[in-house]
């Protein structure tokens, strides 16, 4: 897709990530209801397992992309002044990247010893 495909690309991305977010949330909810971890050690072990860690990372990435498209849409709709829009977009991008890196750090910590 070309550089100008930002409309279609964003739209598809938002829908695709929504499907994954929905499915993973459902799975996670069932996991917590049917086999809730008894203590902190079990909770950490849950996220230390590779499939869960990868699924969680993909989930976080999906959330970040989904949120980015959504917030960008809101800012395009309502915030007209160029510098204000640019500042807000930058701020939100930084917050989202920080959230992603934080998740990565937590997952790495869960796997250490």
């Amino acid at each position, binding site marked *: 897709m070309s550089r100008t495909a*930002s*409309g*279609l690309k964003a*739209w598809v991305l938002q829908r695709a990530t929504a499907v994954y977010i929905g499915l993973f949330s459902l799975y996670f909810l069932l996991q917590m209801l049917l086999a809730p971890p008894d203590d902190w050690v079990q909770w950490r072990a849950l996220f230390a397992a590779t499939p869960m860690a990868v699924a969680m990372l993909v989930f976080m990435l999906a959330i970040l992309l989904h949120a980015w498209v959504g917030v960008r849409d809101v800012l395009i*709709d309502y915030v007209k002044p160029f510098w204000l829009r640019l500042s807000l977009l930058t701020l939100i991008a930084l917050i989202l990247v920080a959230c992603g890196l934080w998740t990565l750090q937590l997952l790495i910590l869960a796997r250490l010893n």
Partner: protein
Amino acid sequence: MQFLVSRFNPERDEKPWMQTFEVETWRGMMLRDALLEIKRQDESFAFRHSCGEGVCGSDGVNVNGTNRLACITPVSELKAPVEVRPFPGRPIIRDLVVDMSQFYRQYRAVDPWLVRKDPMPEQEILQSPEEREKLDGLYECILCGCCSTACPSFWWNPEKFHGPQALLTAWRFLADSRDQAEQERLDALEGPYRLFRCHTIMNCVEVCPKGLNPTKAIGHIKQLMLKNAI
């Protein structure tokens, strides 16, 4: 029956204000008849109207908060006092008359005509009944503007977002088997604004006096775009 009508005279008024009128109603009276009666009471009152039967699309107004065609809106359906205002979001020229230039510009921007690249045939270009059927629910648009002026995305970005009316028309020509400019039409709708400001709020579907569904048409365009992209 009591009518509250929005008045605005650019030479005299700073902003629009509401004037109250009492109108004697009769069985089968339409809102257009009530507006004509109000005009008899006060000659300076201005509104657009023409055919009187929901075909020309001239007398779109905002009635009790909803965009409708005055000529096919029975007053018996309305809750009194009836508040009649001009279309929201458009510059007011006078009373209920608004400037629709932006709306027509967006219509023109989607090239609302058949584009042929092959040489024109001697006879008409034939369509199968199935191909013709695809245009039902699209060609009936009368450009009254009820949909686009009810669309929040069009309120926020009227100069960049095409709006439901123009996008319905875009799909009308994309869906036409005789048209040969699919790629150009899709390319012209790319980017975050022209098509993708639609957030499926569906005000357009709710207000269309012809019962058309611009949201569905927009969905078809997005699907076709996706099919072309992957």
